């Protein structure tokens, strides 16, 4: 199957930052599987986050603790490799101020209709010129070891993200497709980076050429992604580096599936094998609940930069 042309979704709307989502925004998120929120971060906040990346990728971790996932380490990787790091909150308290933001957790939970949200994953994606493609995938695939197996992501542009620069490509409405996905290494696939999408199209029995939308945003704007929405990204064909930071939340009530169920990915590392199925708040702190509870150590550990 040939890739479908890039057709902008006529129904894509851009909203401005507000303290609360409108019912229309929430309805769009559920209908389309995504929502754009402009100016979530200020220019100064964008600069503050970007300034942390050079020391982090140079193995200078403020806390002395290493990240959960790290690809594109200088010296060991191709010069055009995407620099990816997850679990930055443990390494750097400036990054933590965003990764553990109660406001982002609240926005995530509100869109999903949860009464509370806990930390799921935080990750930066730095795509230098000619950085390769990222395979299409669904984020929920990576939380199958958890119950419920659901995650929502607030993906924040830290540079001008454009189609040419390998921005995120999404398929509106694909969060409702009945199809499977598998955990795979997402960076620089040898085959067509959209191959998993074509397989999903076939499996779900939906139209052969689904609309693929390139998300184009200015620095500081954010895209909320439903965990079942198919997305990926193309090669960076510009001479500028594309940067983004993603903050994903889980429902506050999330626990582990019984041993042997689901793919462990990062989460299973933190399972108390000799204990119960709970997700320990030391590792997955609760960041916002509608009754005001928040895991106590978080406010001692870092600032909450977006707190109202």
């Amino acid at each position: 199957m040939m890739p479908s042309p890039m057709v902008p979704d006529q129904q894509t709307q851009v909203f401005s930052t507000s303290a609360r989502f409108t019912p229309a925004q929430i309805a769009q998120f559920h209908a389309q599987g995504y929502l754009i929120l402009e100016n979530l971060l200020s220019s100064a906040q964008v600069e503050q986050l970007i300034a942390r990346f050079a020391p982090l990728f140079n193995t200078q971790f403020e806390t002395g603790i290493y990240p959960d996932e790290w690809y594109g380490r200088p010296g060991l990787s191709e010069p055009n490799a995407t620099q990816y790091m997850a679990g930055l909150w443990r390494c750097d308290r400036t990054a933590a101020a965003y990764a553990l933001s109660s406001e982002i957790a609240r926005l995530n939970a509100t869109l999903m209709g949860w009464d509370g949200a806990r930390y799921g994953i935080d990750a930066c994606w730095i795509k230098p010129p000619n950085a390769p493609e990222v395979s299409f995938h669904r984020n929920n695939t990576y939380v199958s070891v958890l119950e419920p197996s659901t995650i929502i992501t607030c993906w924040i542009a830290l540079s001008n993200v454009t189609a040419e620069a390998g921005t995120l490509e999404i398929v509106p409405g694909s969060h409702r497709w009945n199809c499977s996905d598998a955990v795979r290494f997402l960076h620089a696939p040898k085959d067509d980076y959209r191959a998993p999408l074509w397989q999903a199209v076939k499996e779900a029995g939906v139209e052969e050429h689904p609309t693929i939308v390139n998300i184009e945003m200015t620095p500081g704007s954010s895209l909320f992604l439903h965990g079942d929405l198919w997305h990926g990204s193309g090669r960076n064909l510009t001479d500028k580096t594309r940067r983004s930071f993603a903050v994903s939340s889980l429902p506050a009530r999330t626990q582990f599936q019984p041993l042997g169920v689901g793919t462990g990915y990062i989460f299973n590392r933190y399972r108390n094998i000799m204990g119960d199925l709970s997700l320990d708040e030391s590792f997955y702190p609760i960041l916002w609940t509608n009754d005001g509870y928040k895991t106590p150590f978080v406010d001692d550990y870092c600032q909450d930069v977006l707190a109202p």
Partner: protein
Amino acid sequence: MQTISELPAKLPVKSPAKSPLTSKQIEQFHRDGFLVVEDVVPTDVVDRVVERFEPLFSGEFETGTYPDEWHWNPQIGKPGAAAQMTGVWRCDRTIASVAMAAKIGQMAAALEGWSGARLLTDGIWQKPSGAKETTLHQDSMYVNYHTPTEVITCWIALRNAIPGASTIEYARGSHQWKLSQAVAEFHNQDKSHLAEMEKAAKAAGVEKTEFVQLSIPPGGCVFHHGNTWHGSGKNTLNVIRKSMVLAYVPADARFKPYDTFVPGGYIAGKYRRQGDDAMDESFFPIVWREDGYRTPFLADFCGDAVSR
């Protein structure tokens, strides 16, 4: 020559007959800072471990759980660069069956005079032809957040641990020198891989360092003290050097008291619960203890391929 009676009081009080190592071997360890023990891992087990390297570095994790560190993969890794993976026991039960070997843990405990050994972390290393040097360092630079503070490492030769092929190298007796500041980056230094060690030697008043590159047949291993300077040179031969590393702390080790994070916690610090100094056996299993205790889940998870 130093005799047993002159060695530190922490040496094992068990009778030599029960120890897996001789008094002479223990004496040599404390004199040199390292000790080679041949024929520890059976050849067929070595072969099975080596077979796991390719799928692991390609991202095929048998258990579905990702490692703590994963540097280099075929997609975005620089050809000829060193490959390193840490926390592999959770990903692959063949690796775990060696990492959790009671016999190796018992040897580590015997050398340090501990009543038991707890696995802090494991790792696999692959250095292809042309792979760069690994800067000499002391493991205690990175592992000093627990009490009792000792750490001992077992480096297992799997393939081509020979001079010229980036085999492990030591500054003999350097465990007696003062612990230096952490070497920030040991994959990608822009200076000699011996520079930091030489600086430490000078500070210790050592005029001429005895520098040794070891030749160890597959299945043999070398234990080194946490303060012993070690690293590896460039691989100048047309072979791939492969090794496995196991780091142990005393079975009764706990985290030092910390506030919201473990400064310099590297990987282990991520697994500390807030307000709890325990080194949980889910994350740091006890592989051998003189009273016969062994972390229970290991029996079902991976068994022991070495102590058979």
